[in-house]
């Protein structure tokens, strides 16, 4: 755990608690050396990020963002982050149930680094997490 506290964090924004649990589990299983946090919506995500920026804490190294969320959804949050000069550099992976071309086009157009559809099995979850490590963790 101490290792994990060496301030590398991954932040997941998703209102679906089951997916958060699965993601967290899979992340742990994948053996990535980072802390895993989640928020429930775009609003919380944004306040968390701004908080970090103000307190000069370390910003998350990766954001996993669901598109469909209450209050502020992933699309808005994505655009907001990517247009904020202080946050724009943060890598964002869209993790959602949608396979819509429209959504993919939008997300990639807005500057997301990757677009992933939520896997059907736990093994796939783990595989997915593993695939993220070499790039950002």
């Amino acid at each position, binding site marked *: 755990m101490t290792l994990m506290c060496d301030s590398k964090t991954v932040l997941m924004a998703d209102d*679906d608690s*089951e997916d958060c649990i*699965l993601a967290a*589990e899979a992340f742990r299983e994948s053996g990535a050396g980072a802390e895993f946090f989640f928020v429930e919506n775009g609003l919380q995500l944004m306040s968390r990020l701004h908080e970090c920026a103000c307190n000069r804490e370390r910003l998350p190294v990766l954001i996993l963002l669901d598109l469909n969320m209450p209050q502020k959804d992933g699309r808005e949050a994505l655009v907001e982050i990517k247009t904020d000069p202080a946050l724009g550099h943060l890598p964002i992976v869209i993790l959602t*149930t949608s396979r*819509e071309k429209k959504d993919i086009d939008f997300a990639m157009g807005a500057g997301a680094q990757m677009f992933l559809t*939520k*896997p*059907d*099995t*736990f*093994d796939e*979850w783990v595989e997915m997490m593993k695939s993220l490590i070499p790039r950002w963790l």
Partner: protein
Amino acid sequence: MRAVSAGKSRYTKAIGLLPVVVSFAAIAVLYIRGESFLWEPQYLVGISDTVFAAIVPAIVAFFAARAYLKTGSLNVLLMGCGMLGLGLCTATAGWLRPLPGGADYDVAIYNAGALVGSFCHFASAMLGASSRRQQYRPARRPILMIAYSAPLLFAVSFSLATLDHVVPPFFIQDVGPTALRQVVLGLAIFLYASSALIFMSSFLRTKSDFIYWYSLCLAIIALGLFASYIERIVGSPMGWVGRCSNYLGSIFALIAILVAVKSAKSGGLPLEEVIAGFFEDAEANYQSLVETASDAIISCDHDNRIILWNSAAGKMFGYSKAQTIGAPLFGMILPLNHENTLAEMIAASWGANPPKTIEIAGKHQNGHLFPIEISAFVRRVPSGQVTTCILRDITERKIADEALKESRATLQAALSSMTDAVIISDARGRFIEFNDAFATYYRFKDKDSCARTLSCYPDILDVFTADGLRAPLDQWAISRALRGERAANAEYILRSKETGETWVGSYSFGPIRDARGAIVGAVVSARDITENKQMEEQLRRSRDELETRVRERTEELLKTTRELREKAEIIDFAHDAVFLRDMDGKITFWNKGAFETYGFTAEEALGRLSHELLATELPAPVETIVAAILEKYEWEGEIVHTKADGQRIVVDSRWAMQAGKDGQPAGFLEINRDITARKVAEEEFRKADRAFRTLSEVNQALVRQTDELELLRKVCAIVADVGGYRLVWVGFARDDEQKTVEPIASAGYDAGYLTRARISWADNERGRGPCGVSIRTGKTTVSQNTESNPDFSPWRFEAIERGIASSISLPLIVDGKAIGALGIYASEPDAFDQAEAGLLGMLAENLSYGISSIRSDQKRRKSEEAVSAERKRLFDVFETLPPMISLMTQDHHVAFANRSFRQRFGESNGRLCYQYCFGRSEPCDFCQAYTVLRTGRPHHWELTTPEGEVIDRYDFPFTDVDGSLMILEMSIDITDRRRAEARLAATVSRLELANRELEDFAFVAAHDLQEPLRKIQTFTDMALKRCTSALDDTGRQYLDRVVNSASRMRQLLHDLLEFSRVAAKGDPFRRVDLAEAAREATDVFEASTKQNGSLIEIGDLPEIEADRTQMVQLFQNLIGNALKYSELPPHIKIHSETGQEGFCEIFVQDNGLGFEQKYAERIFKPFQRLHGRGEYQGAGMGLAVCRKIVERHGGTIRARSEPGAGSTFIIRIPLKQAKLENDIDV
């Protein structure tokens, strides 16, 4: 009626007083002077009494009797009795006067009669004063008999009694009257005077002439009796004054009767009524006036309660007098709300003459309201005021007024539809009515800007009569009509002072007269005939030109003739031949003139027989001539002689008988004058005249005839009859093989000549005659002598047989081509000299012109008729067509409307289209019909009427037969169609919405169901993987089933999502290369095709407008399907064929398992499978998605298959899509 109105009458009445005054004065003078002079010639008294005192009263009594019988008036009866009583007694007394003691008789009978008379008059006066008219007393005749016989009986019996001295003496001559007589006469005087005064007072009330004279009559009789009363000697001046006064009284009574006669005549009433009426008082008169009035008369008191009600009122309102007296006027017979109206009217008409009237409604007893005219006046009486109303039922007048209004409206409608300008003017030249055509005719902008009185027009127009003279205002049509003139087609030339435009009008006009025949206005109609005039003028000019030419020719001829005649006269003077012959005819004298005339010298002639020498041809048998000479001693005539050189000459010959010494005829003196030259000249003149007359009659026929054949016949007849030719005919050149000249018309002596002549206009034997030549050459051709002309040989025999000696043929040239010839045959040779040929040539020219003008006329008429017939047919068709069809003029008149139109909008009755179709007063602002007039092209538009109907309109420019431009309009009421369309559109959009909602729902449902399913799968998976220790075999088996079910459900949801995505998530249509799409689809299967050696052939596929992704999916599904259901190595062929109407057909053919054709439809339904789930994978959605895709593109998909023989899927899809970018499904 009975009122005294004339001043003359007053004057006469004043004169009537004079005798009374004179008589009174005479009595006074005689009484004072006491004259005792006696003058009493025998019988004078009898005669004068009879005449004045008996006959005159008898006449009065006669009229009185008739008046009584008629009216039953007792006054009249008593008046008659009184007159009769006094008259009879006076006359009897007069005749008894000469008897011894006659004075006593005279006085007694006279005075007794006076008393009787006075009683009667007094009784009448008293009755008159009580003003009762005894109308209903029965049995008037017996009463009259009794009443009139009473004085008679009295006179007779009293006379007898007096003669028998039964009566005590009345008068003793020279002594004076007895006391008895004084009592009797005094009473009579008193009664006469009283009656006179009573009647005079009645006269002052009634102002009745009759009563005046009657009262004077009584007064003067009273005076007369007074004179008798104071006389002492009968026959003294005083006695005569008395008698004369008595006579005057009778005369006054007669005057009274005459006054009655006059009054009866002027009033149109029976005399008897009038006489009786004089005795009635004013109130009674008023009552009877009221009762007999034809107007209802109602009086009411200050509370408006009815106090007088006449029988006319009863008839008008249906109430009896008893029902109405005391009833309120308003509410019962007049509506309550009229109370104030009536009061105002009375106030307003105070002193007005004639009294004002108003029209209000009256109420009949049966509740029916009707219009009445009422006048009223108020009379103040002690109890307040009395209002008297005179009411008249004006229902009929109202109806008449309405009818008048209606007929006026009809008149206006008629006027406005007329093309002739029509003006109706009143007697002072103010225009009461005029129509739209009037405005056009007088060059006004519109009807409103027309000047409305005749007197304005001299400032606007100059008017000329047809011969160009300026017409003053009193010569204008309206002025003439107002003077009572009538005319049809009178021509006027008008010139606008403003613009100088000139036009010619044909006027018809006449006065309008009232029932009495007085002129109250004028009606004038006018038509612009400028164009006609111009045409006429042209025709006239060309005719004048012709006539001038004819005249010139004629004058030339006349001149020649004159010259010839002068020459002949000179010859006459210089060359009279004179010779004598004896009874045997032997020449005994021969003068120089004879030598010069005949060429025989005297020596040669003398002794020769004259008729042998000169070969005399006499105009009559010689015996006749000799007989004439023996009777008259001379003879005159024209004879033919032969000169010495053999020339035959005509001489004007006069023979006179020479008597010998014995007085017996000895021989004849013959004086001859050579008139051969004159004869020739005369003949020439006759011929020229004949030709001219022929020509002018032909010209007249040309002007009048409109039928070609008729014209030709007429012309032939004229030339034959007037021109005096043997045979005249017209032949037309036919374009047949023989080039026949077909006789069309002929006149004169034919006898089959023309039918046998078989004339041709070809250059052959039968075509070289004058006729053929003239047609061929177009020139006049003459054959001067039938016998000698070699060209005439084919017809010579026939011609000679018919007395034809020479002929001329004149070509008829129409439009530069000889269409035939006019052939004229004369019975003498050399008949056609240059002059005649010239005139006939002109005639032929005129005839040619006539024919060509008739032909062109006919052509024009025929084409006009054809056009009108065509038009008529067209309109007949229009009439029955279901759309509304109308024809509108430029000024919004509806010239034609078919049945549908009329059913929808009714009859136009001359109203303008907007007036009667939409009830507007000006053209509709939404109307686009008139753009047609501007553009000249058809116009199609849609009209929504103010009532909300939708009308589809087609307007076409339409030229009428007369060339005027109109609009042919076809209107179809498409309100219902539009409504149906709107309903359909609404339904479709509702359905589309519902469908879209359903599709959206399916998509959302499928999408959202995936989420929890994925969780089920993941967590089951985790449970199996991570909790292996906690699960026994059974638990694991259960979880496996959960995993399987979830997996299948996932597939189902996936497919469902795909299916709904087709509609809900499709891309817009773009151009897609199908071959490329098919190749892309095969890429997916690349791995498996390599593996099992399957073959996919892609042939030529078109480029269409489609959703590319879906096209790829379509091919994927079909190929996948084919690959899936195969046992052999699959072989798939994809190709296309061009289908119909912008479609192409794509065939996807495999060699797979195939299926039974009966499943061909089922396989396209969602979740339908032909095989068990275990055999082949898939949820059975692939083909359903295919169909959905194809249908979204507006195409169809079907399958053709046989078990074991493979399947073919056929996609029929449009090449182009209706909407490319904005696909409704997106």
